[in-house]
């Protein structure tokens, strides 16, 4: 389960609309409760998409932005709990590229479909498993806190 305040949920969807027809991306900070397999988001950090060669269908978060996000999480006494990106004119389902490039096991990967500039469905997938060899994406319920 991914629990996310409505304001942050809307913010990441808006980010996808703003960067359309290019992919947006960002980092989600918060807390992880392993006992109930729950990630609670407290902050979304917008990141730039480094894949300027193919930003309509690829994203890459600058490692330095990731490093800064990790530092912010430490300062807040929190963790990186997930990431988000958009799929312009494409369903909110993970792709083979998303899977191949996903390495943060135990984190949520949130995808928003943006059709003709308008955010549609937002889905979350937990990267489950224990190693690169047995990792898999599992559908994850999103609870929007209003």
């Amino acid at each position, binding site marked *: 389960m991914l629990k996310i305040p409505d304001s942050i949920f809307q913010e990441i969807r808006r980010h996808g609309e703003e960067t359309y027809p290019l*992919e947006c991306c960002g980092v989600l900070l918060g807390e992880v409760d392993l006992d109930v397999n729950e990630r609670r988001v407290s902050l979304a950090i917008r990141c730039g998409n480094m894949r300027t060669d193919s930003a309509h269908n690829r994203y890459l*978060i600058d490692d330095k932005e*990731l490093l800064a996000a*990790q530092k912010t999480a430490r300062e807040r006494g929190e963790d990186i709990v997930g990431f988000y990106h958009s799929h312009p004119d494409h369903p909110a389902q993970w792709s083979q*590229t998303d899977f191949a490039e996903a*390495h943060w096991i135990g984190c949520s990967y949130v995808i928003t479909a943006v059709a003709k500039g308008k955010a549609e469905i937002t889905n979350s997938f937990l990267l489950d498993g224990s190693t*690169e060899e047995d990792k898999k994406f599992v559908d994850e319920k999103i609870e929007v806190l209003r």
Partner: protein
Amino acid sequence: MKIHIPTPLRQYAGKNSTVEVKGGTVAEALANLTAQYGDLRRHLYTDDGKLRAFVNVYLNDEDIRYLQKENTPTKEGDSLSIVPSIAGGL
């Protein structure tokens, strides 16, 4: 020196977000880390002992690829961050 462990690898590092290690180079610091927490090794290295391609290592704020890679010297007070990459797309 300190090594900052990213969220997914903490379960293999005694649930620590930061581990204190000794080492005169990045390679020595990482070797001491994996000596302390053996389970981390397969998550950081390939079978032939190379750092996995998606594992970025930063010494303070610098990517070690642009320094002297794993031979980069380290000193007391430095911090090393392990940052797996984030990418994807359609």
